[in-house]
């Protein structure tokens, strides 16, 4: 009995899912709604490809949907080099079309193409002897042209083609915007890399120098560490690394600081091995530790630092705590806002937020004389971080 109920429920479920999948668009009542739905959903299929810019491959992927939007036999896109992609017609070897593209780009306005412009074997053979060519503009600059060809060109085709070209242009502009934002983020990271503070370089070299006569072996080791540190910091490695790598850099850094402070600098590391594989933007941990040394330990002359990374379900909690001088809360706020000379924390905070969202910035607990604790959480998996669509994740595309 229950078996039949279950089977019936399963069949009903199958039917329901199938109906939902197949007939969702048809539930729209008026023809107008249906028309808008179809046009927009086709346009949205073209959008992701266009958002990756004006490359032959991307345009090629977008042309299918664009042709169904225009409902013509063929669609062609070209730039100053000639035809770059076409759909529905074979246009690669048609010099005449390349010429048409260039002339539209020169004139900067829509042009009707007649049989003379379309006398390629392939087009003429199929009776496609009329067409419309419209320019594609990004930031007021003509970057290419869109051509629709068919056996007859109804008067409205020019306007429809113009609207489609505007849509394409908007998407290309967005692609351009993405690109410039990516460049900005990358520039910021490069800036941080160049931020190994002169202060640190001076201190490290002085410390090494003090060992040169008394303990040449130690001095040599420290120089190797210093070289390794600078190499890691300057190298244009991946935007992301894992926590284990970051801890390695911290270790090298602390080795150099220990040379200076000797036994006056105590370091405790507490790590849950589960979180070592967590991916973090590179160079997020070392600046925080350096901050603890410079603003916590250095003013006091001695102290200890505790670095912790623990597992908390879907996120890893990372904290750096020192028992040093502590800072006034207002100065911390202005440092985080990027208004003070200490760029490190501000930059780390910005990048954490840009990558994981505003809930994952630095949390700083401090008061004068009470030490400082800087902590942040890193999600173990990020499916669609708030700004990743334009920020770090897409740096990869370059």
């Amino acid at each position, binding site marked *: 009995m229950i078996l039949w109920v279950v089977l019936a*429920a399963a069949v009903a479920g199958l039917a329901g899912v199938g109906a939902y999948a197949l007939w969702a668009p048809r539930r729209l009542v008026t023809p107008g709604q249906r028309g808008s739905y179809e046009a927009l959903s086709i346009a949205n299929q073209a959008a*992701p490809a266009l958002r990756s810019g004006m490359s032959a491959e991307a345009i090629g992927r977008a042309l299918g949907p664009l042709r169904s939007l225009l409902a013509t036999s063929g669609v062609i896109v070209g730039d100053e080099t000639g035809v770059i992609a076409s759909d529905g017609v074979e246009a690669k070897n048609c010099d005449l079309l390349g010429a048409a593209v260039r002339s539209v780009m020169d004139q900067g306005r829509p042009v009707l193409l007649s049989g003379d412009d379309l006398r390629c074997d392939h087009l003429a053979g199929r009776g496609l002897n009329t067409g419309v060519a419209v320019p594609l503009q990004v930031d007021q600059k003509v970057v290419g042209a869109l051509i629709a060809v068919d056996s007859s060109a109804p008067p409205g085709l020019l306007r429809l083609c113009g609207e489609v070209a505007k849509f394409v242009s908007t998407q290309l502009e967005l692609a351009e915007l993405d690109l410039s934002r990516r460049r900005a983020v990358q520039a910021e990271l490069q800036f941080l890399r160049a931020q190994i503070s002169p202060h640190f370089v001076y201190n490290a070299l002085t410390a090494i120098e003090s060992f040169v006569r008394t303990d040449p072996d130690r001095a040599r080791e420290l120089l190797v560490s210093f070289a390794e540190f600078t190499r890691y910091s300057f190298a244009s490695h991946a935007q992301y690394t894992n926590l284990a790598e970051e801890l390695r850099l911290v270790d090298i850094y602390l080795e150099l600081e220990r040379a200076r402070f000797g036994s006056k600098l105590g370091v405790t590391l507490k790590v849950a091995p589960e979180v070592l594989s967590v991916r973090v933007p590179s160079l997020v941990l070392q600046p925080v530790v350096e901050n603890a040394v410079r603003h916590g330990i250095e003013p006091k002359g001695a102290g200890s630092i505790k670095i912790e990374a623990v597992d908390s379900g*879907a996120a890893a909690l990372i904290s750096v705590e020192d028992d040093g001088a502590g800072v006034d809360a207002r100065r911390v706020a202005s440092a985080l806002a990027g208004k003070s000379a200490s760029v490190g924390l501000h930059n780390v905070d910005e990048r954490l937020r840009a990558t994981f969202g505003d809930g994952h910035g630095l949390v700083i607990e401090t008061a004068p004389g009470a030490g400082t604790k800087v902590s942040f959480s890193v999600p173990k998996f990020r*499916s669609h971080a708030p700004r990743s669509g334009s920020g770090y994740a897409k740096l990869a595309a370059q």
Partner: protein
Amino acid sequence: MTDTGAVVGVVAVSLATAVVGSRGLRVSRTRDDFLVAARQVPSGLNAAAISGEYLSAASFLGVAGLAMADGVGALWYAVGYAAGYLVLLAVVAAPLRRFGAYTIPDFAEGRLDSPMLRKVATGFVLVICGFYLLPQMEGAGVTLQVAFGGPYWVGVVVLGVVVTGAIASGGMKGITFVQSFEFWLKLVAIALPALALVAVFHHPSLDAVTGKAPAVFERATTVRFAEQTGIRVTVPVRVVIHGYVDGTAHDATPPASVELTPGVHHVGAGTSISFPAGSAAPTPTSGVLTNRQWLSPLLLLGGRSIHPLAATYGIILATFLGALGLPHILVRFYTNPDGQTARRTTAIVVMLLSCFYVWPALLALLGRIEAPGLYLSKATDTVVLVLPRLAVGGVGERILSALVAGGAFAAFLSTSSGLLIATAGALSHDILAGGVKAFRLSALGAGLVVTVAGLAVRGSSINVLVGWAFAVAASSFCPLLILGIWWSRLTRRGALAGLLLGGGSASGAVISAMAGAATTGWPAILVQVPAIWTVPLAFAAMIVVSLLTPRSLPSDVMGKLRALHLPEALRQPGLSDP
């Protein structure tokens, strides 16, 4: 009949777990151990942790118990539990680690860009964890019952309280170390008694299995009949009875011995009968297989031959494909630094599991020969716990029962803590959208629900319950993972349809099987080994609906497939981040 050895074993395991669990962070104070602390977990340790979390009550008690009751065909469960990792190794381990997904809902959302899919996946995580937690609770109930002689609910409540408390208080920090410790514990706790028993039984005569002499009680044995049972006596035997036999009450003090004549006797529920050493064991009139049936290589559902080939294929499908979709296992893979180590870890897991499953098979055989009383009391699931007592006496018995009780408790602890963490994680992260506090509340709530439900499943076979959890996983997450990783044309709607249809029908079948529907013929196969039809159904639904709905294709499919399949070193920086 409290067994001090077992008490010591259970308490020692709990304490050791607490110690390893709370000190499981690596701490360093000097330069040298800084590097050690920051080093990735080696594959061997991680593999032991995965195996530790995986080997549950079903493996430790259930496989031997079910094989003893339903014949060697039940060993297909053991084969499947180990072989599931072979599928995992070949098909999903490395790509999934490269993708960086931490949970299955993460993967569902990340691969298909659908928050809706994430919610549905979370729902199935809860369903699977639920089905899987119940047998752990039952196992704990049975184990403590055997060890301490108390009522069934004591074990369930003890396990519920210990696990829920440990997780809700945040006491399970070094989970990798805990789980790997418990793997080795379980391996020793099952292998050592099995070896000792083989030695003690002096190479037992295989006649008992091949069908000549009737099984014999080696030592004086008291059998407690939980329910009304008919028994067939072949050789007259003098026994001491407490309770009802053939409608006559026997409760004289001091107990008088009564002769059971050859023939069929009806024993009332709650009766206990003490048999002297060396007497031939009676057989229940129903439910015990002949030796020929017992040796059949195909799975006999509930000990009856109902389309055994179909049942076997059903279990093979469920266990081979179900391991992919277990929510608490995937989380452990995240500890591997990259895809290659994930693969190496899985290969080691397969080997470790294979080493483990030899022993339950051996114990089932020994149980059939040496512990015929379990057939009478219908407590074959306790065979692993009872055997050491039957075989050896004195200190040896104490040590062995401490070992098996401790090992069994380790099995419940590790699996149920992994499952409860997965449940609480899914609840707090995807449903309550909260932080640490929400996690603790979810752990408390889920622990309470499972403990109460654990009281209700008494008497079902542990292994069958776990097999059902695998069937639901195989019909929901397995198609999602396999198609999601290997098929570029999978769409949101396709995934959703397959998940709902496959997972829903498997859950429905399992629930109707629990409710006792359809116990004969093909309907019994369809509800009791649902994987045989729900897995193909889920795959078909995903593929067909995906092909019908190309418009709901997620964006940047190629980028995602690259993130899944390109080795980390070949990948452009950052591409791994979907």
